[in-house]
């Protein structure tokens, strides 16, 4: 992992992550430009390519609440961000698993912008402060999808099994 680049509050909705007015743009290759479009400094930081892969955004509770729009995941996946939140809304979490966006449920996380973060087993370690926090593992049922590299390859595998290919 890398540094914390931004901190967000509770209840960040998909309207904040990917505003509705950009929803006609659907392709994962085209959505990243609109990530957090209404948070000007964050959007600029991302679009200016100042953010290395595996950079961390720290959020509060209920991240990704609201719409089922998958653009809210693909827009973040485009930067290979890691989202650490106290918890996630159901559809957003499932979309993340399906698309391979890294999400970490960490109810007690404490971190500031610029802190260095690392995962070690079921712990999230803030290397800057030396503190570590428990990670809540994803629902076990979803692991098969993650292991396959996302829902597209997983479904393709199931399709091939079904058709006997």
């Amino acid at each position, binding site marked *: 992992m890398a540094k914390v680049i931004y901190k967000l509050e509770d209840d960040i*909705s998909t*309207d*904040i992550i990917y505003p509705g007015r950009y929803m006609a*743009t659907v*392709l994962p290759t085209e959505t990243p430009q609109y990530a957090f479009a209404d948070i000007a400094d964050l959007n600029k930081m991302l679009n200016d390519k100042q953010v290395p892969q595996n950079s961390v955004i720290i959020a509060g509770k209920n991240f990704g609440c609201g719409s089922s*729009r998958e653009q809210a995941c693909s827009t973040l996946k485009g930067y290979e961000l890691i989202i650490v939140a106290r*918890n996630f809304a159901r559809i957003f979490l499932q979309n993340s698993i399906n698309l391979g966006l890294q999400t970490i449920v960490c109810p007690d996380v404490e971190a500031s912008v610029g802190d260095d973060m690392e995962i070690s087993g079921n712990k999230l370690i803030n290397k800057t402060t030396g503190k570590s926090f428990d990670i809540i593992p994803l629902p076990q049922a979803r692991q098969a999808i993650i292991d396959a590299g996302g829902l597209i390859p*997983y*479904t393709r595998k199931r399709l091939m099994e079904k058709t006997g290919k």
Partner: protein
Amino acid sequence: MLQTVVQKILARASGKSHVDVGDVLEPRVDLAMSHENAALVMNQFLEIYEGTGLEAKIWDPSKIAIIFDHRVPAESKKTATNQKKIREFVAEQGIAKFHDIRGDEMGICHQILPEYGYVRPGYVVVGTDSHTTSHGALGAFSFGIGATEMASVWTLGAILNIEVPATIKVVVNGKFQRHVAPKDLILYLIGQLTAEGANFKVIEYHGDTIRNMDTSGRLTICNMSVEAGATSGIVPSDEETVRYLREVAGVKDEINLVVPDSDASYVQVIDIDVTSLVPQIACPHTVDNVKPVNEVVGLKIDQVVIGSCTNGRLDDLEIAASMLKGKKVAKGTRMLVFPASGKIYREAMVKGYLYDLMEAGAVIANPGCGPCLGVHQGALGDGERALSTTNRNFKGRMGNPVSEVYLCSPAVAAASALTGVITNPNNGSK
């Protein structure tokens, strides 16, 4: 071995006699709905088939519904081209439950599905829209999924690896006071549960108030259950479900009701008596920021919106028309009305509701999602405030991050349109 409605539905759809909360299943899907975001589903669907040597065919086109509602008629060449591609795909795949921009066929997906009898009690329904929770009003287990998940459903006809959710039982009794409606009940409940209070859970609705409520009100309640984070809301099917399906949707074939076991196990039970409930309002910028309307009366309103999958049905328009008939919308306030479907639009026209509303100063727009999610019409200007019967008030929701959206019932919206400020319809009129 006692089960909730959703356990029973998932057991049947998985070929089991009984399932427990937490069991991992692959239930068969009875109905899979998408709107304009079918454009992304198509993209993901074709990617699944890439390199397989197989022809990309939907597992069962009769179980797919595609409805244009978010941007109708198209607002841009991008949307128009997406819609064109979807039309071509629909023809190729033989999807009959396709609702284009056309007369009685058009409308908001969550209105079209019940109105056309596509949803039945006991169905597993998925939709690429978070408000797919609406269809729990007809006793189906109905929930929102993303586009890639839908592409997987199109391929295999099942939802892969889902866990049986726990259920919260909400028991509602008592009689609504004048100008208090199902919308006030669901806003109140969301305020109590908070925006994440039902995350990963189902809300099952019971009690005399629910039994006596028509399907329109049940749709409002199930629609907004997702705003408490719920996977779905569900009203166990009953005589009213049958009445709606027969009389409104014109369903002729057999309807099988699914009800929970009387001693099913619930993770939480909430009792509400609506007799003392007063009109509620959700204040910016979260849907759980709910207060009695009286706490915010007098705030100036720039735009009133009546419509959406939450409150754009005939009874909602009737309430607004009856309150505005022969009166005028306050100067300086815009009132936008979006009937939820073509059929509702036409009936409201025949009954004179649209005439009364327009005479009062309202703008009657075509059926669709309208300004609800800020993608098409009715965006707000900087610093403006809207009062809306829709379902979300997130920052930027109505197209502008420096505006405010308040959520309320049609009665509160109509009363406020007359004064230009947030108004409790019960103040000074008893």
